[in-house]
């Protein structure tokens, strides 16, 4: 696929990218700032639709789907983890985790709450379930964000600099969680600056100037 940033002189960000990722793989994308790795991630995650080419996830062609169709697809199949945690500050930890599942609407509220609590204990932070999400430490917030990403059993986790804002102890924790998830069959695609983090993943994709090397 190809992607241009529009402008007076369109900037060719992604040049003839062709990539396939296997189910259950733990992939990290590394590269210098501006090489297009985040852009690639947002295209893979269906949030960015302004590109040329084709994107197929789980055998379903998602390029060309309408906005609401993509939203539904993300809700069901993709979990997000961002650098800046991005929890909704008005809600408690538990509510933050439950919202994507409530949106999906496949389970009853009680079942969702139960499964959210399960995710929290999986992350080892069951005790903070009822705290307002604004009052957590960075590491805690990131674990909540991962729990939220997992609530709909998406199978695919997209992470943009998941450890970019964390100290080494928390980074270690997050990495272990990712590894564990990968073993359970989740596909993980993470963009990172942290080469140590990347080295321990299943596959590293390095990008230079919009190409995979």
């Amino acid at each position, binding site marked *: 696929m190809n992607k241009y940033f529009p402008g007076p002189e369109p900037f060719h960000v992604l040049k003839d990218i062709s990539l396939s990722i296997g189910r259950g793989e733990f992939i990290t994308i590394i590269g210098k700032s501006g090489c297009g790795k985040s852009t690639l991630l*947002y295209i893979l995650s269906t*949030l960015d639709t302004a590109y040329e080419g084709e994107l197929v996830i789980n055998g379903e062609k998602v390029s060309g789907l309408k906005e*609401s169709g993509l939203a539904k697809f993300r809700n069901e199949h993709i979990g997000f983890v961002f650098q800046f945690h991005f929890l909704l500050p008005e809600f408690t930890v538990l509510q933050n985790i439950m919202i*994507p599942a409530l949106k999906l609407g496949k389970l009853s509220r009680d079942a969702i709450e139960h499964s959210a609590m399960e995710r929290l204990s999986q992350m080892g932070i069951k005790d903070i379930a009822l705290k307002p999400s604004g009052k957590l430490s960075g590491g805690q917030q990131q674990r909540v964000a991962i729990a939220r990403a997992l609530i709909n059993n998406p199978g695919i986790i997209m992470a943009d600099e998941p450890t970019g804002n964390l100290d080494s102890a928390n980074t270690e924790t997050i990495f272990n969680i990712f590894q564990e998830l990968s073993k359970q069959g989740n596909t993980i695609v993470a963009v990172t600056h942290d080469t140590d983090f990347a080295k321990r993943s299943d596959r590293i994709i390095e990008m230079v100037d919009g190409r995979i090397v």
Partner: protein
Amino acid sequence: MKTSVNLFIAGTQLWSRRRQSVIAMLGVVFGIAMFIFMISFMKGVNNYIQDTMLSAIPDIHIYNDIRTDYSSSVTRSKYGSDPLKMIIVHHPRPEKVRLNLKNAGAIIRDLQLYPEVAVVSPLLSTQVFFNYGSVQINGVLDGVEIIQESQLFGLRDRMITGLPEDLLTTDKGILLGQGLADKLNVVKGDIVTLATPGGIAMRFRIAGTFAFGLSTVDNIKAYAVLSGVQQLLAKDHDYITDIRMKLHNIDVARDLALRLGKKYGYKSEDWESTNPSIRTGNLIRDTLTWVVSITLLIVAGFGIYNIMNMVIASKMKDIAILKAQGFDGRDIRTIFLSQSLVIGVLGAIAGLLLGFLLSYGLSKVPFPQTEFTYMKFFPVVFESKYYFFGAGFGVLTTFVAGVLPARKAAGVDPVAILRG
């Protein structure tokens, strides 16, 4: 289920910044409260003024106008249809006519069959002079059936001394306008002497005095029984110059007056044609009220628009996260629009309540008393239609004010926000 997530998010966000929400709501509350207050008061004023001015005007008035139509030709009766002959009449004058309504009794019986008509009151009116010492005071004597007349103009409420029915129990009784009685320096029980333009004089005993609050009436008018005036004018029992009517609904007066005029062949005037300034005044006050009220509501709408815009600007990140998690543009729009609507609906309810309390309060404030006002408190009407309109328009304003920011929120590009 999915809608309920949106509402759950909207509710939580609204609650977490309740101070801001309440301030946005206050705009709507005051807008609607002032709308209710102003419209109730203005309508009260309109009604009061209309009541006062209409108090001495019947809804429909049928009488025999002096004919001033001189278009008919007299040539034919003199020369037949010879087209070469003509007669030129300079400065024609009206013919001598009897100003009474022929077959008045039949007309009255016919009018009483109309379902629109509440009261029919016949009248024989004449100019009279009230002799007061050596001075003669000009006045108008109305010969009426006092029971109908009382129903027509609500005379009972306007009596200063005596009762309308006293006219029937007093031999040669008369009811005087209070202003007239003051001028003549007479009170109930005194005797006054009346002289007609024809030169006949007759003595009447004062059975009571009344005040309409209009000096044009109170200073010149007197009532006597119809048969008394017929006798005074030396006319027969059918001699009636006017028929006045009160309708159940005064809005049909114009239409009905036209129909009646055609049917009986007499001049038939509705209250509006008799006194066009009433409707003009009402229209001006109504326009003012509506303009000011709607401005208030729109200003409240702008308040909501501003606050929602600020909220959305500060919630960009949250919108991006929600979108990443599978909420589409419509969900985001629902979330923010429902916040505006909650503010609008709660504001409207509180506004109606406050508006009612203000109106109720004003309706209990005593009105400064003068001898001609019969109003005890400030005039306020309580009509549910204004409450419905206020609430409806208030909610509509907040909806419109909420749509634009909500659409903006729905259009947020999550990638731009998430990448920072």
